[in-house]
């Protein structure tokens, strides 16, 4: 997931040099073309080159998308190790780990679209990576829930439901005792 974040486009950047600039309209550019330079001819010349380039890029994107999709797996292993370390008693450390183990997959699942946005391409098939990503995160979530249950924090026992029940009312009332003295 961290990696996914790293490739995400940032809107707050100050400047950028776009080496793969392929826009054709001069109006989108701030700097006028140098004298004697004809943009149209170059574009025509480079059309095959740019197609190759695009192919490479989409390949690269697909590859990256798969990498991002697999990233939660490492997390999963890491989490499992941490949980094992935390033990089965309820205390601050184990609760913290468990809740982070629950929170991470949930937040990741919420932002699936965002994470895969940089790799969005008409020619890149993102469904596979997305499904893997979701599956792995669900696995993480399951691990978290399992840990929660192991800690006894899930209301899966009768005791969790009964302990809040008030005692039943009695129909009869009886008083008395020894005679007053």
């Amino acid at each position, binding site marked *: 997931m961290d990696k996914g974040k790293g490739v995400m486009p940032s809107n707050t950047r100050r400047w950028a040099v776009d080496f793969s600039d392929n826009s054709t309209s001069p109006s989108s550019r701030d700097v006028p073309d140098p004298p004697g330079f004809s943009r149209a001819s170059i574009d025509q010349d480079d059309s095959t080159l740019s197609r190759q380039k695009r192919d490479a890029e989409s390949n690269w994107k697909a590859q990256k998308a798969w990498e991002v999709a697999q990233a939660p797996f490492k997390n999963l292993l890491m989490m499992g190790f941490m949980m094992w370390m935390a033990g089965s008693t309820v205390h601050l450390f184990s609760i913290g780990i468990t809740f982070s183990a629950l929170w991470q997959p949930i937040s990741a699942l919420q932002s699936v679209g965002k994470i895969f946005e940089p790799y969005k391409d008409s020619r890149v098939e993102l469904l596979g990576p997305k499904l893997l990503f979701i599956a792995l995160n669900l696995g993480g979530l399951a691990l978290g829930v399992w840990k929660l249950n192991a800690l006894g924090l899930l209301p899966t026992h009768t005791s969790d439901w009964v302990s809040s*029940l008030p005692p039943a009312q*009695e129909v009869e009332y*009886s008083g008395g005792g020894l005679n007053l003295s």
Partner: protein
Amino acid sequence: MAIRVFHFILLFLSFTNLTYSLYEDQVGLMDWHQKYIGKVKHAVFHTQKTGRKRVLVSTEENVVASLDLRHGEIFWRHVLGTNDVIDGLDIALGKYVITLSSDGSILRAWNLPDGQMVWESSLPGSKASKSILNIPKNLKADKDDLILVYSKGSLNAVSGVDGEVLWKKDFADESIEVSHIIQSSDVIYVAGFVGSSKIHVYGLNAKSGELLDKNHAALPSGTFGELLSVSGDTFVVLDEMRSKIVIIHLKNGEISYNQKHISDLTEDIAGQAVILPSRLPGMFALNINSYVLLIKVTNQGELVLVDKVNNGAAVSDSLSISEDEHAFAFVHYGDNKIHLSVKNVNDWNHDLLKESIVIEHQRGKIDKIFVNNYVRTDRSHGFRALMVMEDHSLLLVQQGEIVWSREDGLASVVDVTTSELPVQKEGVSVAKVEQNLFEWLKGHMLKLKGTLMIASPDDLAAIQALRLRSSEKSKMTRDHNGFRKLLIVLTRAGKVFALHTGDGRVVWSILLPSLRKSEACENPVGLHIYQWQVPHHHALDENPSVLVVGRCGPSLSAPTVLSFIDAYTGMELKSLSPAHTAAQVIPLPHTDSTEQRLHLIIDDNQHAYLYPRTPEAIDILKHEFSNVYWYSVDADNGVIRGHALKSNCVQEAVDEYCFDFRDLWSVVFPSESEKIIATMTRKPNEVVHTQAKVMTDYDVMYKYISKNLLFVANAAPKAAGEIGTVIPEEAWLVIYILDTVTGRILHRMTHNGCQGPVHAVFSENWVVYHYFNLRAHRYEMSVVEIYDQSRADNKDVWRFVLGKHNLTSPISSYSRPEVIAKSQSYFFTHSVKAIEVTSTAKGITSKQLLIGTIGDQVLALDKRFLDPRRTVNPSQAEKEDGIIPLTDSLPIIPQSYITHALKVEGLRGIVTVPAKLESTSLVFVYGVDLFFTQIAPSRTYDSLTEDFSYALLLLTIVALVAAIFVTWVLSERKDLQDKWR
């Protein structure tokens, strides 16, 4: 490893949690302690020497005490045991206080200045008789100053120096009721009656106890009352018709008598005469109706009426003020004042002192008066009088004013209930708030200094003083946490006091007119006090009230007295003297529209009477008619019976508030093997939070929570007496837990080789009781927990998730649920005077047992120590659940004495009241002393501690806000600079 360490820390924390303790500077913050002595019986002044002036008193609570005459404070005090009744008190040798107690079998000497015991001697004897303590002046036998004690049918001469019995003369075979010891130089005369008309006199050698002569005379008729000594050898007594006074002279062992009709002395007064027991030289006082006659006995044996006082109250003993001059005091009532006169015995027309005192009406009449003199600067005599009032309080009157008073009626508390305080009214003036705000800030700044450890010793003292006399805790309004309440106590004198829980002061007191001695009510006794009206919902504008149930005399058939008292003002709202008697009072769990609680009073003729007597109450009862049961415990015959209401009474006079009942069941214990020695039920107002008990494996046990349970402890009839009178084989203790609706025995258990006394406490689904194990020679405590097996199959989670269970639907005892009981026993070091359990508002907080020990302290013991689930080696999970490894005895942790360094002398009872704050329980302990404190069995988890520094919190917040502001400004500035770059 880390986990292990962590567990260790957790375990350690859980153990520290068990102890409830105070820091030294917390003493007196939440608790208060009041020392009393009880109703004074004898008083001896000790003012001869210059220096501390004191009065020595012995009281009906078996207290010997030395009081400061200036302020009424206690110099020293000893509370003797409940069976150690003090019969006589005097000063010997000018330095010892001598007390005779336990029917004259124990004679003790206490050092006068500090109250240390100097010697004690026991005077055994077989015959029960009146006990007389006589300390003659200047009677010596071999340089020893003699103390003469007549007790248990024999006369003992005891050395005043070391308490050794020098000689003893047994009168047990003579069948004589000795009433006087007369001492003349070397001969001691012992005078007494055989039957009611034969007077015997024995002369004994003072040095050896040798019988010198013996004489007897028969009086013409029987006698009434006690023989009263008028002078050294002259006695007066009434004849059996109470119409004649018999004057008896014992001159050197010779007996002569003459008699005189009372009507010869005074013609206009008729009635039953009583000789007042005041010792006056050559005089005596006679009480007829409301008149007190003072009669002088001349040397010739003639009687002369000296004075006749109407509305006379009390006459003191005489006091020698100089050679041949004796003074005495008497008081009488007139025009709302008390007139105190001190007169010289020989010079009747001259008053040594005449004063009028106004005494608070609520103190009632004067019971006893003791007088003492002092020499004024102009060498004239001044007098001070110690008065014992009808409400058992003690007053010192000097120069027409009450110098000090002691509310010693509070030493004999009979019953306690509580009441809320009024809700705070709005409209506090602004100036007061500002003052308060300033004070508040100042106080918190001081506290802050204390927290930061920069306070000087003066500041520390100021902080402590501030904490101790915090006005917050003694306000007369309800507080948010429910710590401030009124404790309403009924005393043996028939006086009701309201004590403020904040500082223990008396808010109001009322001597109940219906519980005062009168023609109709000879021996009134207050029995119980009940909460009659507790307005909280729809009757908030009404004041709460309490019901006092009393009786005119000790027997069950004595008439009943009911009195209703406003809990805020202490006014008696009304009092009733119903025609029926009161054997039992049952508060029902129903209230009417004004929040008056319905009460059933059962009389000794098997009728039940409903109170309040309103049609609405009848409607409510009719509605619940078939569900109201009651049971009676007949300890003498070993029978417990259950009853139910049947119909209105069948009597000549129609009373629709009277009901008959029918017998439903009875449990008869075999009288040859079992005798009821103790019963216990749950407190009717106890709140239980949950019906489930969660085991370590998330399993659930359902508690059998019923208010209709009765714990009965039966001992073997032989072993019903004191410990040590039977061998273990003859002793057993059988305990029962009964359902009082159906009479079903839920649990029965026998402890072989054990005997009482049994003290028990019943709460939720468990009972804890304390008894003596004869085999182990130790006290034991056992716990029994009852669980409902019929609910145990409610194990399916989905039924709970969907709400498809019937655990909260009303249950009936007739459904006969299957129950199981778990129990465990432990040794306990102390013998116990009372056991109580903490009670909290919602019943969530864990419970502590409050054990009143024989040392008159109160020990808080966690209920976790009395848990049948304890095992020798609890598993890890059980340990985490707070189960303590099983030990053979219960630990006594010195820090968990809630009375800390104090003693509640003569401890008789413990009362716990929930505060509004769930964690806290209020505890009131009464005996001769009173003690009140707040305890939090699981610590105050729901509030900040009292010493929490709000100022520090405020300061932190202010600092944080300031820091935020400053950094914000700085960052703005930096941004601007960056933009300009």
